[in-house]
């Protein structure tokens, strides 16, 4: 029938005479997609692709002072290998990253599981309260933690209840990393709980009910259901924590300014990069540090992905 033919033609995008109707240029799907994507693409190319590319180019130059640059090949990368302060900063950063992984994965996961359980009422209220630190101004965080971690501060007062002597958290080299981990725990536990709660809510209740019927208690349900079935979200949070750990910058900055903390105990790789770029104005070497740091983060992330069997799915 004529009507059916017309509908079929319309669906197939051809005119009754077999020609495609000519759409206005601005209405073509590809053009529309491009128009909507263009602002993002322009910003991404200018502020990301170009910036990263330019940093790689700078890493092969010696730039000391304004208006001076010289190609030096791999000299900056060789310098990375002999940079004592750089190694101190890298060691601090890795210790911090490991510390945050040990705290910021299990603690929020357990808290998320508890929050999701039937024993906790007003779950959304607790989630909101735990999320508040993420929204707190960093200046405020810095001031609060300077007071909290001072020798006469609240933390020492609390530890004193258990007979632990007062510690100079911000003035002792080996306590600088724990101080930053304490601060990171306060800041990031809430957001990680949100991530884990989202992951846990995707596990069907029927599985828990079946396990309960089979006699599994809450702890066995946690170990044998919640943990394995949350593997993707645990992987996601782990990689994010590694990124955050290696990009450690704000915590030492608000606690010790641009100094490296007591005996460089709080000097992170990114603070070292920042000081090389802006205090020394050695942009070439700072760029090389940035490139090496990016490579280290990539390697660590790949190791974690491999360990979690992320690539196994592709086979």
């Amino acid at each position, binding site marked *: 029938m004529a009507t059916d033919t017309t509908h079929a033609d319309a669906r197939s995008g051809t005119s009754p005479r077999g020609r495609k109707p000519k759409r206005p240029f601005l209405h073509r799907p590809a053009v529309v997609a491009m128009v909507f994507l263009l602002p993002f693409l322009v910003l991404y190319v200018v502020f990301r692709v170009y910036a990263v590319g330019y940093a790689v180019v700078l890493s092969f130059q010696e730039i000391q002072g304004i208006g001076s640059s010289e190609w030096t090949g791999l000299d900056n990368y060789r310098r990375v290998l002999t940079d004592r302060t750089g190694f101190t900063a890298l060691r601090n950063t890795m210790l911090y990253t490991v510390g945050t992984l040990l705290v910021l994965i299990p603690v929020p996961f357990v808290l998320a599981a508890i929050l999701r359980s039937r024993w906790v009422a007003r779950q959304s209220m607790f989630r909101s309260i735990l999320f508040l630190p993420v929204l707190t101004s960093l200046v405020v965080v810095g001031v609060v933690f300077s007071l909290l971690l001072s*020798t006469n501060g609240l933390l020492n007062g609390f530890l004193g209840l258990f007979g632990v002597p007062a510690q100079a958290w911000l*003035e002792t080299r080996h306590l600088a990393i724990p101080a930053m981990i304490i601060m990171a725990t306060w800041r990031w536990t809430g957001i990680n709980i949100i991530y884990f709660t989202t992951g846990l809510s995707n596990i069907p209740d029927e599985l828990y009910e079946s396990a309960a019927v089979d006699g599994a208690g809450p702890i066995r349900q946690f170990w044998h259901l919640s943990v394995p079935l949350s593997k993707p979200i645990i992987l996601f949070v782990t990689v994010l924590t590694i990124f955050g750990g290696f990009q450690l910058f704000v915590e030492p900055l608000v606690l010790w300014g641009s*100094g490296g903390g007591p*005996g*460089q105990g709080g000097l992170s790789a990114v603070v070292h990069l920042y000081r090389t770029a802006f205090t020394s104005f050695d*942009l070439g070497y700072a760029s090389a540090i940035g490139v090496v740091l990016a490579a280290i983060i990539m390697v660590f992330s790949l190791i974690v992905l491999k360990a979690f069997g992320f690539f196994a799915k592709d086979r």
Partner: protein
Amino acid sequence: MLAITNPDRRRFRWGAVLIAGLLVAAGCGGSGDDDSAADGGGGADGGPQDVELEFWTFVDAHTDFMQARADEFNEQSDEYNIILNASSADFEDMHDRLLVALQSGSGAPDIVDIEIQRFATFLRGDVPLHPLTDIIDNHRSELVEERTAPYRADGVEYGIDYHLGAWVMYYNSEILDAAGVDVDSIVTWDDYIAAGQQVVENTDAWMASIETTDRFSVLGPMLQNGGGTYDENNELILDSAENIEALQLISDMVHEHEIATASAGGQHHSEPYYQALNEGQYASVWMPLWYVTRFKDFMPETEGKILIRPMPEFSSDGFISTMGGGTGTAITTQIDEDKVDAAKAFLEFAKLTYDAQVALYTDLGFDPFRNDVYDDEALTAPDPWFGNEPVMTNVQAMFDRLAPEFTGPRYPEAVLQLRDVVAYQVVEEGADPAEALRRAADEIRSLD
């Protein structure tokens, strides 16, 4: 009736897009010559020419000080009417933005405050600051010459400070009295140590506090002993014999004589330290003279108790003070060429003239670096907070025994080594001062 056909509509749409694009481009384009020096008013009728100057600083009080000087300048000048757009930002943020603006070639202010620790960064490569030697020359015979050294490169001065920053010893007379120590009997460092032992034995206070996360405690005695980071020939002297002797003295005070300890909060600019000093936990502290403002602002209990004296001497013919901290005001090369003369005239008026130097004391509480103002009645008046003594007159008495500070190309890194590594290792970990300084110097030398 006006009818728009399909092709017309399409043409109209493309036309609208084109016009919108042109409007956006025009809006983004800027007006090129709008920022020229004349800035509109003044000049043409023979009156003073309006000159708009952008000024960046990281100290709020400096904006008020410079604005007040601009008002005075405009009252007196027939040639220029300065319109000062002053803005204050966080220390790191301001210096970083300045560096980026100067490197990228646009966005820098006309006049800027650069802290002494960061100044050397701007003297590498093509110096993006205008030489100020000519305006300093106009007053050189009146100035404490040593204060121009930190802002000099290859014999050219690029910055003018806000103060002399003479290093002094602040004694808590109440604690010293309780310990039976006469403050004026302390002349040498040996006297100081002996007095410290009396203080520790007879009171609950320490004689001194040493910073472990800042530079002042270690750098002051080093400079006073003729050391420091660089000499006048731009040679790094971080591991010089003078520095080692000074640092050994500090180490001995902590570990051998046990009269000094690491300062609360790690530095003399922290809340815990202000609290401890206010409560009388330390009988003395050596800091530059601008630290008087910290007593008045943060340590109310010290009112009337603090006496200011020269640093104890290493030798009878040696220095009894030096200079510490500082902020150089500079003119950037991004200023319009036709504003340079006005900016220099204003900076000379605001920083180097007699009245401006008196104002450095009356407005900011700083010790001026112009000799002749010390006889002004504003500076000779006794200060009740500091034992009712004429503090500035006593400072002037040190001028002939004042060690200069030279800042070479790696001054920022040398300071970081002192504050991050050396002070902590020596004070907290008992490291050998000579070894700690040698490692720090090696680290700095390895950068070039």
